Structure formats: C-alpha cells, structure tokens
C-alpha cells in the first residue's frame, strides 16, 4: 500500500495490515518524525511538506517495486504525509513484512534511502516569521551507493 496524505496515520493499524499471513516471521518498520529544528519553542515552529501529485506516488511505486524485486517480501506499506505539520508529528511510515528479519530490515532501509533522494517531496521549516526550504544532504545521495 502506498499513500500520500495530509492526515495522521495509526502505526498499530498499519502494523496489523502488514501481518498478512502465517508465513510472516518478521516486520520491520520505520517512522520519521519532525525534529525540533529551532531554538524557539515548539509552538513557534511549523513544518511543511510539498509534493508533486502524480509523480510522488509514481516514484514511491517504483521504489517499492524495486525492493520487491530484490527481496522476498510479503507486504510493503509506505505512508508519507504532506501539508502543515508540527514538531514531533509523524511524517513517514515504511513497513515491510517478510518471512525472515534480514529481508525485512534490508528492504525497509532500502526504501527509506531511495525515498529520501528519489521521491518528489520538499520540506520547509518556519521559525517565527522566518521560513527556509530544507537543503538536500549529500550523504543521502551517497547512501544510495550501498545498494548498487
């Protein structure tokens, strides 16, 4: 399942959906949160995620298909939020179920690495009256070389 949405997501419900059959022996999950990125109090900070409707979903589908071709997986779920968020809000959920832990861990790691550099999302941080688009990190691009 792949979803791009404004709404909050329920980790327990997403976990339950990943346990699809009795072959499932491992579920690996990653949840990304909005860090407190400012010296100002949390309530004076906002965080915004923009995406490219159509392309973003296509990018995520490609990444998940790539993961499924590399490892034997039972189910994959990616949920990514967009719009305005607050400090400590959940941003992204990646969950992978498989028969064994190695596949689940590796596929989850792979999907997050590619999501960071190959999915059309952009983050903007606002502290008080000042807004700044978040720069991409070189190390995110370098992380992809682990999977080549």
């Amino acid at each position, binding site marked *: 399942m792949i979803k791009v949405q404004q709404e909050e997501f329920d980790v327990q419900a997403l976990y339950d959906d990943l346990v699809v059959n009795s072959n499932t022996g491992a579920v690996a999950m990653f949840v990304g949160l909005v860090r407190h990125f400012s010296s100002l109090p949390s309530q004076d900070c906002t965080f915004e995620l*923009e995406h*490219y409707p159509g392309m973003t979903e296509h*990018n995520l589908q490609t990444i998940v298909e790539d993961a499924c071709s590399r490892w034997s997986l039972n189910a994959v779920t990616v949920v*990514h939020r967009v719009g305005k968020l607050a400090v400590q809000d959940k941003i992204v959920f990646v969950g992978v179920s498989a028969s064994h832990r190695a596949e689940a861990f590796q596929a989850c790691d792979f999907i997050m690495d590619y999501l960071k550099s190959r999915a059309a*999302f952009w983050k903007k941080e606002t502290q008080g009256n000042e807004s700044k688009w978040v720069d*991409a990190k070189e190390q995110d691009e370098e992380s992809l070389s682990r999977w080549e």
Partner: protein
Amino acid sequence: MNELNVVFFASLKETLGIEQYVFAGHLPMTVKELKMQLAKLLKNGDALLDKGIQSSIDFEFARDGNIVNEGAKEVAFFPPVTGG
C-alpha cells in the same frame, strides 16, 4: 508549434513567482534547451540555471540531455528532493 505544460516546485516556484507555465515552442528539444528558453522567458528565470535544479518529464526524473518529445505532456523543474 507544440504546447507543453511546465510546473515548478518548492523554492524554485517561490523564486519564479509562478507554479505553472504553458510553453509554446517546437519539440523535440532537450531539457537543457527548454530550460535555457524558459530562463529568458520568465521573470527571475536564471534560477532555472542554478546548479542542482532537477527535472522530470511526465513524472520520470530527467537529466539535461534527455529529450522532451512532441508527445510529452508535462515537464517539471524543482530543487533536490528532501522527503522522509
């Protein structure tokens, strides 16, 4: 003459002051050629030539040398992505 929808995102959209532009011109051309033409046509268009600006053709990431064919519907320009 072809018409091509061009869209912009994030900081580039703010710098250009527009999120969409209908480009009229003769396709095919490379992404780089399209970028050069748009840079002349749009206010603050030089921002398109900044190192690091990325692009896509019909939802697929593209590079400067990729061809925008006659059948292309939409090209996007944007800064490096920062999801997750």
